[in-house]
């Protein structure tokens, strides 16, 4: 009897979990639909978007620049140690650049964006909900989706691809400092090999397409989690954690799919 009860409770728990998951998925897609339908009117208020670009993009610059530099430096150190065994250390620039523009630039920039800007977006929107600021806007006949969420959505969507490009550029510079400055790789070889092997259309554009896709997912998750958060301090805290975890998983999963489609052949 006890076993039947336990099994029944387990089934109930699983069923409830499944229902909650699909309900949240549905709410997330409904919010996305509302965001997309309000896109054009929101573009007519560029001041709100520019302010949010500053908040989510410009304020993320430091972490992107510093991380990009260090990732490039590590890539140069590791790459050199492998390439030198084959006498191919002059290909270091190509290795660093391709790794960055194809993979690490879009992926790491998106992960850093989730931690720095995504979590801030969720916490800010969640707190506005908890303190009834969004309700107050609704009662003032101001749509919080258009006034609060959309400028942040557009700003994040614009900012992340630019941050990814900056990350890759800083990584290439970091690789240069270590490879050429410290390990003695020929400067001309570093740049010319990179120019010769990195294709704009195949490598750089595909990297940018990846970061555009990551930006869409990262900002959507951050905004939805904030808007759907339980209006309590614990609810906002949980939502912020979910933003970072879900965005990281979504970015890594999406990266595999996009890489397979772009570079799989």
């Amino acid at each position, binding site marked *: 009897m006890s076993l039947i009860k336990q099994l029944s409770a387990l089934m109930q728990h699983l069923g409830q979990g499944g229902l909650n998951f699909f309900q949240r998925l549905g709410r997330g897609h409904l919010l996305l639909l509302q965001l997309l339908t309000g896109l054009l009117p929101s573009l007519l208020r560029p001041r709100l978007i520019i302010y949010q670009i500053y908040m989510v993009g410009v304020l993320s610059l430091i972490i992107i620049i510093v991380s990009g530099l260090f990732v490039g430096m590590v890539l140069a150190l590791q790459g050199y140690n492998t390439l030198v065994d084959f006498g191919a250390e002059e290909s270091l620039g190509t290795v660093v650049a391709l790794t960055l523009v194809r993979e690490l630039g879009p992926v790491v920039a998106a992960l850093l964006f989730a931690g720095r800007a995504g979590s801030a977006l969720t916490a800010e929107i969640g707190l506005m909900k908890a303190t009834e600021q969004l309700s107050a806007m609704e009662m003032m*006949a101001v749509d919080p989706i258009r006034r609060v969420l959309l400028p942040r959505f557009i700003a994040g969507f614009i900012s992340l691809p630019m941050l990814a490009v900056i990350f890759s550029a800083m990584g290439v510079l970091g690789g240069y400092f270590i490879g050429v400055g410290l390990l003695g790789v020929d400067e001309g070889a570093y740049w010319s090999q990179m120019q010769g092997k990195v294709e704009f259309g195949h490598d750089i554009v595909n990297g940018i397409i990846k970061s555009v896709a990551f930006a869409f997912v990262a900002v959507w998750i951050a905004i939805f989690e904030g808007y759907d958060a339980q209006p309590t301090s614990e609810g906002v805290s949980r939502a912020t954690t979910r933003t970072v975890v879900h965005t990281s998983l979504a970015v890594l999963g999406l990266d595999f799919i996009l890489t397979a489609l772009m570079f799989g052949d």
Partner: protein
Amino acid sequence: MKTSSDTLIQVTDLHFARSGRPIFAGIDINVRRGAITAIMGPSGTGKTTLLKLIGGQLHPAKGSILIDGENVHRLSRRRLYRLRRRMSLLFQSGALLTDISVFDNVAFPLREHTDLPESLIRDLVLTKLEAVGLRGAAKLMPAELSGGMARRVALARAIALDPEFIMYDEPFAGQDPISMGVVLELIRKLNKSLGLTSIIVSHDIKETSAIADYIYLLADGKVVEEGAPAELTASASPWSKQFMQGLPDGPVPFHYPAPSLEEDLLHVTN
């Protein structure tokens, strides 16, 4: 109160439940145009919920709310927002936007809904802030205000667009006696001179009775008493007596439903 053409808000057979707990079990309320209607009752009877239902932020399980003949919960989003431009809700917490100053909070609805020049917006905002005695606090941030001051700023914001009717959620809570008198007088003036319709949710019996034209007393999810303040004060009904005189004994229990204290204290968990 009979329904007639001078009724602005008509609540009929309203049912609402939250997390399975019934809040309203069929309430009927009529708010007369140009009058001050008070909604009173013990804590947890859903007075704030009623204001959110009237504002269209919550949906009833059954029943209807008509504002000027329009069913609030059957309106399209666009028409609901158009209707909300005619109303205002003063939140219990104030609900000020925390990242902008007091001035910008009051200017917010003006900037969102009008194309007025900044100079005129400035004059309007300062006039509204003067009315609530906080013109000098225009540059402060919401975090620098006390609870009572925040609610007065919210009141200035609520009247910024000169709405047709205002719902006040606990407007007197947290006010010192001087501010209480000013807010009381302001609500009365707005009502009489501009012909506004007001709904006040409050626990402050003396203040509310002084300005209300009609009072609804809510308890147990129903309207248990209604009438002019003098009628309710003189009423022999146990509900009115207990609430209007603040008596501990009566039909409204002080304690939230629970097993007896002895049972709880002597209960040993394994």
